[in-house]
């Protein structure tokens, strides 16, 4: 009996389940019963965090600072000074790029002062006419890659201009053009540092883990407290969100390098910097470029969330459109975001792949042809804008800057389509939604809430133990303990219920869809393109259709939004996993006389499993982040509390603690899935 239990994992699971059910049945739900709910022992943690933040910001390490207004030295806290100058610097950079694109006075003010700028009215920085920007982008695309990229880049800007989104788009672009390079640089530096130094890696690893799963809402408040509200705060929140994958991929890329490449660099006589900049980083560029791509996507995914703390641009307008339920307009803005994302991504890739011809004997004109063409475009654009100022008398010069909402719009057309869909399906769908909530969702939710804490721990730690031994079991227990000791255990259970349900549905759909698409190369290509496109959408966008069809403030629309969003990684990883099964195995299977179904079940699925498990892991991460965003259309879980913390003056502690709770749910699942996938990989000899 004992031996059988030791060898057969499924018997262990059955035993665990029996214990779990018994615990659920026999623990009485009452206030003081510690088996039912643990006491909130770390209830004070948020307050502690708030106090520490206040201390660091206002009382820690006072330094003497020269105050030019009162012409005296004043004692000021170091941290405050530091964050203030960092904010100032980033804001200056963003505004500088913004004024190159849109014109303005702030840069001039920075170097002279308001008084001077008010007195000298001629000192205004003119905007670049949109024709020049679009032409410049096309030239850049042509110089880096060729006519197709040139057309795409040009088209992006023309689209933005004629749809009247020029100003918000340029605001967003200036914000991304600063935040993305900062993230890339920071990620590279940290990644290289961790690659060189084991201790740094050990410290960095858990931080990255938490940061990648932590919902973005939860660090908005701390960012605001440290850097106040505005574009710079949005940029910093974006950097926090976008840097971890960059660090990860840098470390990964550098670790994958064969030691011989570094040795070849050394034997070529490289010094330390040359080795790093000319050998290691370029050779690892495949992974590093994926990181850059991720950074760009993250930056654009953050534009909406950054607008909550004062970033200007498309995100801000998208948020307003959503609040007013103007779906048509939201779609138009969404297209702009996606176009900018894809264009920046393609341009950065092309730049990294650029090739030089050393033996071409070029004349001055040939060597500088792109600059010269740009110069011509600039002159023509300016002249056109100048002519435009005579043609368009009603105050808007369409050849200079197309003002916001003065372009063509398809909003009415899109809105009509949306209205038709709602009219046609709303009643059927609301019937379905009601049935789903009453018959399925509420009972499941109640079951989750009816679990005694001891049963939850037994189940979670037991799974951890069976899969990965004592170590994993303890990890899982530790993560859960933190949540159980806060006062939000019940909220966390609701988050867990939404997340697990959505993950189950997503995984099922993803595996089925992935499997079907993997059968045909064309279907595979189409599906992977769809996945790529869906992933460039900011997660926000998914709330629109769900909300439209199923209404606000019910679990159905949240679950639908999560499922749509989280199915993407499940599908993608299933396809990639199935495609990675070596063809020899297919042949070996065929020669053993398996039929198609047998081959799928007994060869492809087991071989692809480790990769698919990583997909499920991603699905969990995606689902968690969407559950939290779901708070915007009304849930009653951790996300709702995080959202409340946003508007709370003392919300730093609450926000961070709640964020940690969410991150720990994700990390507990991540631990188990990752261990399991690695074991399977090793067993299959794939590691």
């Amino acid at each position, binding site marked *: 009996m004992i031996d059988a239990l030791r060898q057969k994992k499924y018997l262990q699971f059955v035993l665990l389940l029996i214990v779990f059910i018994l615990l659920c049945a026999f623990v009485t739900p009452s206030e003081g019963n510690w088996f039912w709910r643990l006491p909130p022992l770390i209830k004070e943690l948020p307050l502690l965090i708030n106090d520490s933040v206040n201390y660091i910001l206002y009382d820690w390490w006072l330094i003497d600072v020269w105050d030019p207004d009162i012409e005296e030295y004043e004692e000021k806290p170091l941290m405050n000074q530091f964050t203030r100058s960092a904010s100032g610097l980033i804001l200056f950079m963003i505004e500088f790029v913004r004024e190159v694109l849109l014109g303005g006075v702030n840069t001039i003010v920075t170097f002279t002062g308001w008084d001077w700028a008010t007195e000298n009215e001629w000192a205004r920085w003119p905007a670049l006419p949109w024709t020049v920007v679009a032409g410049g982008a096309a030239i850049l695309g042509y110089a880096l890659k060729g006519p197709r990229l040139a057309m795409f880049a040009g088209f992006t800007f023309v689209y933005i201009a004629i749809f009247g989104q020029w100003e918000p788009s340029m605001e967003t672009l200036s914000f991304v053009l600063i935040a993305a390079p900062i993230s890339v640089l920071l990620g590279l530096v940290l990644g290289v540092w961790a690659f060189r130094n084991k201790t740094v890696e050990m410290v960095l690893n858990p931080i990255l883990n938490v940061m990648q799963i932590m919902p973005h809402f939860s660090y908005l408040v701390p960012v605001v407290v440290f850097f106040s509200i505005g574009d710079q705060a949005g940029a910093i929140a974006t950097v926090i969100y976008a840097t971890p994958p960059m660090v990860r991929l840098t470390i990964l890329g550098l670790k994958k390098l064969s030691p*011989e490449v570094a040795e*070849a660099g050394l*034997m070529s*006589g490289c010094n330390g910097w040359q080795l790093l900049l000319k050998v290691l980083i370029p050779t690892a560029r495949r992974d590093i470029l994926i990181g850059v791509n991720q950074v760009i996507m993250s930056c654009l995914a953050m534009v909406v969330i950054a607008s909550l703390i004062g970033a200007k641009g498309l995100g801000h307008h998208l948020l307003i459109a959503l609040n007013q339920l103007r779906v048509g307009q939201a779609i138009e803005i969404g297209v702009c975001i996606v176009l900018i994302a894809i264009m920046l991504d393609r341009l950065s890739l092309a730049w990294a792949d650029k090739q030089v011809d050393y*033996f071409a004997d070029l004349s001055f004109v040939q060597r500088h042809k792109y600059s010269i063409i740009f110069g011509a475009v600039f002159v023509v654009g300016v002249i056109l804008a100048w002519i435009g100022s005579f043609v368009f008398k009603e105050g808007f010069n369409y050849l200079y800057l197309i003002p916001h909402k003065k372009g063509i719009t398809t909003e009415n057309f899109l809105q009509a389509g949306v209205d038709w869909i709602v009219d046609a399906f709303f009643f059927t769908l609301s019937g379905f939604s009601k049935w789903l909530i009453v018959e399925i969702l509420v009972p499941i939710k109640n079951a989750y809430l009816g679990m005694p804490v001891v049963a939850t721990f037994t189940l979670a730690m037991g799974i951890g133990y069976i899969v990965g031994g004592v170590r994993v079991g303890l990890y899982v227990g530790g993560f859960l303990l933190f949540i159980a000791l806060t006062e939000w255990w019940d909220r966390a259970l609701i988050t867990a219920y939404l997340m697990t349900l959505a993950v189950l549905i997503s995984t099922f759909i993803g595996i089925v869809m992935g499997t079907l698409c993997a059968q045909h190369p064309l279907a595979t290509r189409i599906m992977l393109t769809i996945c790529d496109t869906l992933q460039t959408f900011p997660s926000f966008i998914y709330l629109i259709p769900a909300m439209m069809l199923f209404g606000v403030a019910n679990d159905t629309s949240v679950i639908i939004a999560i499922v749509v969003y989280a199915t993407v990684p499940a599908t993608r990883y299933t396809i990639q996993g199935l495609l990675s099964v070596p063809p020899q195995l297919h042949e070996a299977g065929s020669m053993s006389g398996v039929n198609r179904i047998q081959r799928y079940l007994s060869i492809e699925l087991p071989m692809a499993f480790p990769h698919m498990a990583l997909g499920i892991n991603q699905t969990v991460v995606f689902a968690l982040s969407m559950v939290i965003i779901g708070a915007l259309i009304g849930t009653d879980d951790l996300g709702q509390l995080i959202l409340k913390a946003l508007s709370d003056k003392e919300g730093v502690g609450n926000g961070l603690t709640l964020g940690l709770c969410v991150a720990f749910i994700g990390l507990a699942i991540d631990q188990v899935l990752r261990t399991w996938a690695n074991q399977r990989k090793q067993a299959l000899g794939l590691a």
Partner: protein
Amino acid sequence: MNTEAETSTSDEPVIRCESVYMIFGDNAHSMLQQANGVVDAARFQEAGCIVGVNNASFEVYQGELLIIMGLSGSGKSTLMRCISRLNEATAGKIYIEGEDILTMDNKQLIELRRNKMGMVFQSFALLPHKTVLENIAFPLQVKGISTQESMQRAKEMVDLVSLTGRENYFPRQLSGGQQQRVGIARSLAIEPDIWFLDEPFSALDPLIRKEMQDEFLRLQDVLGKTILFVTHDFDEALRLADRIAIMKDGVIEQLDTPANIVLNPATEYVRKFTEEVPREKVLKIKSVMDPYDPNEEVSEMRVQQDAIIETVAEAVLNAGKPVPVVDSAGEIVGALHASHIVHVLFGGHSDNETETAS
């Protein structure tokens, strides 16, 4: 090929190793001190140390091609990496042209590599983001030579390794053999005095490997570098080497000319390697010739003393008379009898070894 080594006027070897040890592990230094020069690999392994190189002492002379031969894990690559200081030797002294490289600081080391050393790697180790030309020019560029000049120089190297027309290809667009040609050209771009090759042809198909070996011999004929060459392929070693060092578990079992290794294996391990080797492919005429007797009636034909037996065997057997052997200057230094060749070709492998030894 080793004529230059013999006629070399300078006595100072290009590379000189004295009791070099390379031991991996945290407490390698203290273990080595306690061991007092007698390192037992098994005992070290129990203590968590892995012995890479165990008391290696040897010299390599100007223009000589020394091959370090051994199976995987024998420490052959480690030894080479100690001499190029990619690995820091745990103990011992390594001199390059009389200078102790283990005491060099990083700056001196970079100077040394920029001016005197070139290395070819088993996995080619080309930079994937650079074209053929840029890869070859890389060592020149890190040295600070102007783009125009280094590209010019790289172009010459491309021609030298017969890759003309593929200057702007990326490594991924080339076959394995072509990639290694790039690797060779890169290592030669700075015109190094010492050339390290770490299993340069092991990753290639047999036919390509043969072709590359021929190419290598051609280059060496032109350039006459001092070469340290690592391989696990005994045939390759016999084919190319002036001298061979056979390594096992970090110890150099024997260091000698190919002929001597085949004819007089120093240890049981070396003997196992040489057992199956066809002698006529290894031995030079020099090692089987008799003293020249001016009174003897000899054939009109002449054979070079450095020729491999196999290449002349048929002609000598058909000559019907003893064939005079000449040195590179054309002086007669001995005579070759058909009976001796027959003995080498068909005689037993274990008898009469002292008779045929030079």
